[in-house]
């Protein structure tokens, strides 16, 4: 069973309109899942990660209901059926 990645509407121009991406490739961590996506949709991951591979300051990535900032960041473990959700932070103005 694959890992799912839910993308915010603001980023669907970079997913050809798809709101939920399915990662079939084997992946053990959030970073693995995002790397698999980067291989086919690099414009999407450019907007989630900096060029140094860090999650952008005002983007939150959740595994289930918990932000990976409070878990192990990109090293947070995933397994079959995990839902990763990308959400723009409430910051802004």
């Amino acid at each position, binding site marked *: 069973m694959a890992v799912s990645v839910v993308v915010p509407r603001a980023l669907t121009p970079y997913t050809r309109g798809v709101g939920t991406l399915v990662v079939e490739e084997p992946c053990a961590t959030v970073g693995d899942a995002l790397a698999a996506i980067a291989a086919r949709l690099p414009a999407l991951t450019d*907007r989630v990660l900096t060029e140094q591979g860090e999650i952008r300051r005002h983007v939150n990535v959740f595994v289930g209901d918990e932000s990976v900032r409070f878990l192990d960041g990109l090293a947070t473990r995933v397994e079959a059926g995990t839902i990763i959700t990308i959400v723009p932070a409430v910051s802004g103005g």
Partner: protein
Amino acid sequence: MVLVGTTKGAFVFTSDASRKKWRMDGPHFPGESVYSVAYDNRGGRTRILMGTQSSHFGGTIRMTDDFGKNWVGPERQAVRFPEGSGLSLAGVWQIMPGRAEEPDTLWCGVEPACLFESRDGGESWEPVKGLLEHEHRPRWQPGGGGLCLHTIVVDPRDRKKMGIAISTAGFYRTDDGGTSWRPRNDGVRAVFLPNKYPEFGQCVHKVAHHPAKPERLFLQNHWGLYRSDDWGDSWTDIANGVPSDFGFAMVTNPNDADTVYIIPLQSDQFRIVPEAKLRVYRTRDAGASWEPLANGLPQENAFECVLRDGMAADALDPAGIYFGTRGGKLYGSATEGESWTEMADALPPICCVKAAVV
């Protein structure tokens, strides 16, 4: 055409040569901040470039060749620090077309402070290693706007010579096409440091020059107004008759190498035009004297501030001068500053203004 970047998108104003009535188009990129705009008409192009920044999803440079009907640009973030540098793009502060003889060359200045070069008209960008790996980098300190390379001064006669300004590092010049860069701040004060005249570390806000006289530079400092007649080797104070030598914006008149415009601000602690009177100051003798230009500008309760790229000039005769405020007002003069009209009164806070004749 007047290009206006704001904290909430960009606007394009167009008019005929009389510059009396303006048509506004925008916002382009609503919700994104636009701290840099440029127009490039070299090589048969009609290209507008904008440095756009989403507070959530990062920034890039976008381009249009049809005045904003269609925007193109790499879906990928084209301005990227190399892996392992430890640096990530925070914003594009300046976009500058290169020399006329090199129509595919552009430069951009970014935060964290670095210079990037494009050799394909803005499609792709590479960092200038001489600055990326500069030995002073660990000692550069961010100013209020961040550690940004905000000013690029190109010598139209000598492809190997150019200057850049960084807040807070000062003015640097290369004489070898970007391989090496040396600070050129002799005589420029750093009021916020124990050593008031360090080799580098000044908070230079803007540097301007006239392409017909590239070796003569004008500098608006974080306190201080200076001129150099030797490409920055030495600087002399020219704050002769201005209400304050603190300010940001500075632009030369394309028709006269001796004419420069600035908009002084009260102080670093109160970044508002002195006495709440909105006045542009002009010198027509290269800084020997300055005169206020206020005809048509509010002279009471104008608690306005104009940022470092908030003023621009067009190359018509007489030249048009334009500026935008943090309060979202855009003013223009088709008479080289003798009188002003309000072009827009409720834009988002204005970050940058550029003007072009198309």
